[in-house]
């Protein structure tokens, strides 16, 4: 048979290739899996160890990096005894929690409206949410200075409608910081909420209505619990960075606005106290590990569901 030999040869070659890739695969797989871990070690674990080492040292202004390594916990002790740090902590948590709540209350209806809009209009609406990212974060915060400053547009408007005489400028107050954080972090709330609400099968709401649920009851019993993963994700995406936020309180806040991120900045750059700044950073991290772990558990749970 004339055609027999090439065919056999081809089959043989296929087998050989298969065997080769099968042997290569575990090594390749191991390498691919190792990559993120490598990334984590180089860019997270090593720097973290470095920061921890500095935090355990003492301030030495005369040395080149102003640190004398050691094993002292006095920096950490100071964080819990000095009222400044405790107050900064509490006000950071309060501002971040308020911002999270407000972005949730604003973002949920927005995400809901986008998810319920006609499919061909959704990309445009999503684009409008994402559009601010096209401008630098810093520039957007600076823009708020112009809006909020004395004789800025907002104050002029308030004066024009007859409210501004006693209001004064809110720039330099906690209100301005709060406003800036809410503005800057709203998209981070809307996007995960949209992702969760868009997946929601509308026939579930019809089934609820069919079984006698008023629209509000259907929302409470079906929409809300099924969008819970989106709510958790959105809240953490706003809360975690908002706690450590530095730029917004620095630019929009005044001297009376205490946030831990700004305290860290001052310790590091103004006071040049590296060990204390590092201790603040470590505490910030440890306190945020809780919510992050919660987030990961939620993610794992939603993956389990079919």
């Amino acid at each position, binding site marked *: 048979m004339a055609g027999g030999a090439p065919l056999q040869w081809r089959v043989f070659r296929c087998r050989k290739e298969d065997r080769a890739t099968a042997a290569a695969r575990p090594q390749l797989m191991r390498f691919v899996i190792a990559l993120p871990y490598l990334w984590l070690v180089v860019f997270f674990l090593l720097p973290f160890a470095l920061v921890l080492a500095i935090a355990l040292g003492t301030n030495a202004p005369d040395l080149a990096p102003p640190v004398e390594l050691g094993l002292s916990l006095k920096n950490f002790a100071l964080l819990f005894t000095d009222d400044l740090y405790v107050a900064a902590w509490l006000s950071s948590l309060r501002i971040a929690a308020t911002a999270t709540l407000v972005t949730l209350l604003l973002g949920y209806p927005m995400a809901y409206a986008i998810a319920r809009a006609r499919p061909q209009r959704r990309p445009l609406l999503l684009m409008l949410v994402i559009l601010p990212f096209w401008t630098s974060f810093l520039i957007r915060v600076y823009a708020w200075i112009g809006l909020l400053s004395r004789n800025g547009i907002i104050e002029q408007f308030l004066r024009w409608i007859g409210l501004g005489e006693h209001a004064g400028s809110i720039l330099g107050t906690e209100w301005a910081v709060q406003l800036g954080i809410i503005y800057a972090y709203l998209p981070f709330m809307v996007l995960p909420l949209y992702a969760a609400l868009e997946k929601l*099968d509308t*026939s*579930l709401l*019809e*089934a*609820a*209505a*069919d*079984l*006698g*649920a*008023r629209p509000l*009851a259907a929302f409470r*019993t*079906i929409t809300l*619990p*099924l969008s819970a993963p989106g709510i958790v994700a959105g809240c953490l995406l706003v809360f975690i960075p908002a706690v450590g936020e530095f730029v917004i309180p620095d630019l929009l806040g005044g001297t009376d606005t205490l946030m831990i991120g700004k305290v860290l900045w001052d310790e590091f750059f103004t006071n040049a106290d590296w060990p204390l700044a590092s201790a603040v950073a470590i505490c910030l991290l440890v306190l945020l590990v809780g919510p992050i772990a919660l987030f990961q558990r939620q993610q794992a749970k939603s993956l389990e*569901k*079919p």
Partner: protein
Amino acid sequence: MPADTATPIVRVEGITKRFGPVTAVDSVDLAIERGELFALLGGSGCGKTTLLRLLAGFETPDSGRVFIDGQDMTGVPPHRRPVNMMFQSYALFPHMSVADNVGYGLRREGLAKRETAQRVAEALELVRLSDLGARRPGQLSGGQRQRVALARALVKRPKLLLLDEPLAALDRKLREGTRFELVRLQEELGLTFVMVTHDQEEAMSMAGRLAVMDLGRIKQVGTPREVYERPCSRFVADFIGIANILSLGDGRWLALRPEKIALATERPATAHHVAGQILDIAYEGDRSLYRVVTEEGAVLLVSSANVDRLGQTFRRTQRVWLGWSADSGQTLDE
């Protein structure tokens, strides 16, 4: 007070529903009697599902009225209608257990906890799922999910149960058994079922009466036997089962079912007969289908039950006679 038992449970008067340029339901009139299993049958896009959704209240008609148990329900939202629906996708709540799914409607009524639990247990027993109350829908098989959906719709004791393609998502084997199960439940509970299906066999075998729909209109309403034996139009004759449609001239036709035609080697003594030649034979065990071309050039389908194990056989190209009696066919005007 709801009307007496003589009034139909559902009355639809001149109902029309448009979606943009498409008229999904086109001035439909329909009455469904108490305690019957009624099927809306038609191909995809014929408006059967829209009609069902109009009964459930998910769609509001552009014109016409819907009466349920004598009460005008036009414009009444779904949560205030004495009607429950089983969805084609089942629409089970994924974050609730089976028992919580079934009890959902009762909790919305504000029923006491203990009574809710009792009625949920009864409903689950009815569909033979008593052991699975604690499971999530995601942990059930397709057949089990279908029964949860059924229990959830039945537990509120609706005046009318709407079923949207109740068997479509099941595999073939399960479908057969579930068919009888649904009919048993309907008879046992004495409820009115309105079912939407595209499967004529399903509609014929389950329904007491059925409506054949096409292009948003009801073409014919009747018992399966009426619709099969006395179709009112070529569309219905062709849609339900197989029909040979012979032109009689003057815009009139004769619909003749394949099994109504007798196949013979000799000229039969029936009222009508025609000579022909066998083109094809499809042997199906219990019966055989023959395609016969007549002397006038028409091709007729003839079905013959293989009653006799060793009886007469026909072969291809054999010259045969076809015969049928005067009342075998249905004369059609459209």
